[in-house]
């Protein structure tokens, strides 16, 4: 059933009216809407009757009052106070460090194991120049790399120059002793003999060797054994007195030859 807007508003007004005569008049004028009027009247009555009662607990609930509101510290005030406190702490800690000389605690290494020993490397010598600048003097480098040049003050590092022609044992030992500054003690059983230098002789009239190379060359060319005697120099002994010579027997004394003193 379609009801136009004006009639519908009249219908609602009659349904909401507390006066029964209004509804009777509406029912007489619009008899076909009597049922609709009754329905809306019921709806309005139920709607009005369903009004809830007051909540008695409301009186006990929080009541905003001036006293309570003033107690609450505004949020902005909290933020401001916190900021001032933080700034104060920052300046205070700065002042303590700056003016009272409190140093921050150094951090300890968490590594407790001992560090490996550093490799020994030649350190550059640093000297102050006249202009006040620091100058580093790098150790001299030889042709083969960065190893330091041999110290020639050490007798073992002095070059030994030997003639290659008609050289005899005693003459060679004498030349080595003079050039190296080391003493050679020759046992009585050692006989002077001519030295055949072999390939070394083809190099020229003289050959320049290190002390060890010279000693090795003499040992190869003569039947002698030359032993390092520490600070006293070298000891020259005949090969037949060396019991554990490399070519005759096994090394029983850790590689060091032993000397048997004959009669």
């Amino acid at each position, binding site marked *: 059933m379609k009801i136009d807007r004006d009639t*519908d*508003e009249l219908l*609602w007004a009659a349904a909401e009216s507390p006066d029964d005569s209004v509804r009777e008049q509406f029912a007489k004028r619009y008899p076909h809407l009597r*049922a609709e009027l*009754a*329905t*809306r009247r*019921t*709806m*309005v009555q*139920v*709607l*009005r*009757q*369903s*009004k*809830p009662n*007051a*909540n008695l*607990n*409301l*009186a006990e*609930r*929080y*009541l*905003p*009052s*001036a*006293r309570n*509101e003033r107690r609450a510290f505004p949020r902005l005030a909290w933020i401001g106070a916190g900021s001032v406190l933080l700034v104060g702490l920052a300046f205070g800690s700065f002042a303590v460090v700056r003016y009272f000389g409190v140093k921050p605690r150094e951090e300890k290494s968490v590594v407790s194991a001992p560090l490996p020993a550093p490799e020994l490397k030649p350190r550059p010598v640093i000297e102050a120049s006249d202009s006040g600048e620091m100058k580093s003097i790098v150790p001299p480098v030889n042709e083969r790399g960065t190893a330091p040049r041999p110290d020639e003050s050490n007798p073992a590092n002095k070059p030994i120059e030997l003639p290659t022609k008609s050289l005899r044992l005693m003459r060679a030992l004498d030349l080595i002793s003079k050039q190296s500054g080391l003493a050679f003690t020759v046992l009585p059983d050692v006989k002077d003999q001519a030295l055949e230098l072999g390939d070394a002789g083809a190099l020229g009239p003289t050959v320049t060797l290190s002390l060890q190379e010279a000693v090795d060359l003499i040992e190869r060319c003569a039947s002698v054994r030359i032993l390092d005697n520490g600070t006293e120099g070298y000891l020259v002994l005949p090969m037949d007195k060396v019991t554990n010579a490399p070519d005759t027997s096994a090394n029983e004394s850790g590689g060091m030859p032993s000397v048997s003193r004959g009669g």
Partner: protein
Amino acid sequence: MTSEAAEIANIPFDEETALVRRCLAGDAAAFDRLYARYRDKVYVLAMGILMNPDDAADAVQETFSLAYRNLPKFRAKSRFGTWLFRIAVNSAIQFSRRHKYRSRLTSLDDAAAVPAPGGDERNFDEGALRAAMACLKPEDRAVLTLFYWEGLPLEEIGESLGCAPNAAKTRLYRARERLRSQLRKESASP
């Protein structure tokens, strides 16, 4: 005389306005009296919109807190009650939107009150009406509550809803039709 002075001179001096002025002057007891006068009305309004006693009580709490905080903004162009109702309607609608899931829940009492399928819609009772109200929007429930429970005229309903009286009349008409349609729908549903 400035416009502001003229506006103040035209303010009707009633008891509620005097209480508001006393409250703004620092009299805490004045707001207590306003609270005691309006707490039940605000509760009924919130109950009509939220349809839950606990939520309505919370909305009352929020309404009076907002009113106290915004009391200096009250210009006395309308009655204090109308201004308070406007705060209450907005608070309750906001509350209803925040707790939208609750509107989907219907208590067993309400469900049992729904008339049997095929029944006459003239036979519905309060439970059926409540179930139909629960299906409406909070805005519709607000205008129905203000009109049928608070008994406010259309002018004050318009002020409480923030609209003109004619708009309030239109809103009331549509809300009533939706309620009636909802009741009919529930009566016809199996």
